[in-house]
C-alpha cells in the first residue's frame, strides 16, 4: 500500500509535467525574438558587455535598495568602458549621465522603444540624455573616435 517514496515522487513529477506542459513552454514569439538577437553581433557597432550594476552587485540580496543611492552601471568593450549613472530628480525626471573611459569625443544615439534621441559626447567623454519615467530597455550607440559601441541596458 505504501510505494517507495522515490517512485511515488517520480510519478507525481511526471504527472505534474504533463499537466503543466501546455503552459510552461516559451511562447513562439519569445523564441523567435531570441533567435533574432543574434543579428546584434553583426550590426555596425561593438556590443559592450555589462560588467557591473549597483542594483545587483553592490549590496546583499536581503537589503532592499532605497531611492537614495543612484544606480551605477559599467559596460565594457575591448579597451573601452562606458559608465552610466541613472539620476532621478522628482522635478526634472530621470536622466542618464555617462562617461566614456578613457575619454573620447563623439556623439550618441539613444533608442527607447521606437524613438531615437541624439546627444554629444563632450571632450572629456561625458554625456547626458533624458530617460523615460518608467524603467525599460534602452540602447545606446556611441560613436567615439574611430569606435562605434553599442550598449543595451535595462534602466
Amino acid at each position: 500500500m505504501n510505494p517507495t517514496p522515490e517512485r511515488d515522487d517520480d510519478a507525481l513529477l511526471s504527472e505534474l509535467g504533463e499537466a503543466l506542459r501546455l503552459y510552461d513552454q516559451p511562447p513562439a514569439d519569445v523564441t523567435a525574438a531570441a533567435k533574432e538577437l543574434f543579428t546584434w553581433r553583426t550590426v555596425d557597432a561593438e556590443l559592450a558587455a555589462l560588467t557591473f550594476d549597483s542594483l545587483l552587485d553592490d549590496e546583499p540580496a536581503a537589503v532592499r535598495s532605497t531611492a537614495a543611492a543612484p544606480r551605477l552601471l559599467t559596460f565594457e568593450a575591448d579597451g573601452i568602458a562606458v559608465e552610466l549613472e541613472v539620476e532621478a530628480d522628482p522635478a526634472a525626471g530621470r536622466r542618464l549621465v555617462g562617461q566614456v573611459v578613457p575619454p573620447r569625443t563623439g556623439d550618441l544615439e539613444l533608442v527607447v522603444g521606437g524613438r531615437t534621441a541624439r546627444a554629444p559626447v563632450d571632450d572629456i567623454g561625458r554625456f547626458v540624455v533624458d530617460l523615460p519615467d518608467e524603467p525599460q530597455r534602452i540602447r545606446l550607440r556611441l560613436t567615439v573616435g574611430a569606435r562605434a559601441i553599442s550598449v543595451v541596458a535595462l534602466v
Partner: protein
Amino acid sequence: MDQREVAATVRRAAAGDHAAWDALVDGFGSMVWAVTSGYRLGRADTAEVVQTTWLRLVENLDRITQPEAVGAWLATTARREALRMVKLRGREIVTDDESRLSRDDVPGQFPDPEAHVLTADRDRRLWDAFERLPDRCRALLRLLMLVEPRYAEVAAALDMPIGSIGPTRARCLDRLRRLLGDEGGA
C-alpha cells in the same frame, strides 16, 4: 546536445554561425523560460528578462571561458536578470519562501488554465496545487520537469548546492501532495 556538442555550438555561434545560435536558443530556451517564469514577473517582463538573458549571451559569446557550461551560465544569467527586473519594479524579493505561501501576484498574467482546454479535472487540481507552492518549490519543480535537466544548471538557476536539490525536490513534492489533499500523489 551533450557537453561537447554544446561547446562546439557555442564556438560556432561565436564565429558568426546563425544556425548554431538558433540551436542554442532551441536547446536552452525552455530552461531559460522556466527559470524566468519562477519570478512571477508577468508576461511582458518575463519575456523581457528572457530577451535580456539571450542578449547577455550575445554580448559575451567571445568571452565565455567554459563553453560546455553555457547552460549553467544561462541559468545564472536568467536568475540575475530576473532579480534585476524584480528590483527595478520595486517588488519584494522572496528569500525564505518556505516561510510563506505567496499568492500576491496579479492573476491572469499567465495563460489562465480555465481559458484553455484543461481536459482532466486532475490536471486543473494539479495546476492549482502547484500555483500554491512556495516560489522556490515552483522554480525547482519547473526546472526538474524539463527533459533531462542538468543538475549543474538547476543549481546555478536556483543558487543552490547540487547536493540539496534531491532533498528539496522531495520536500516540495511532499508539500504538493499535501496541497492536493493527500490522495497519495500519483
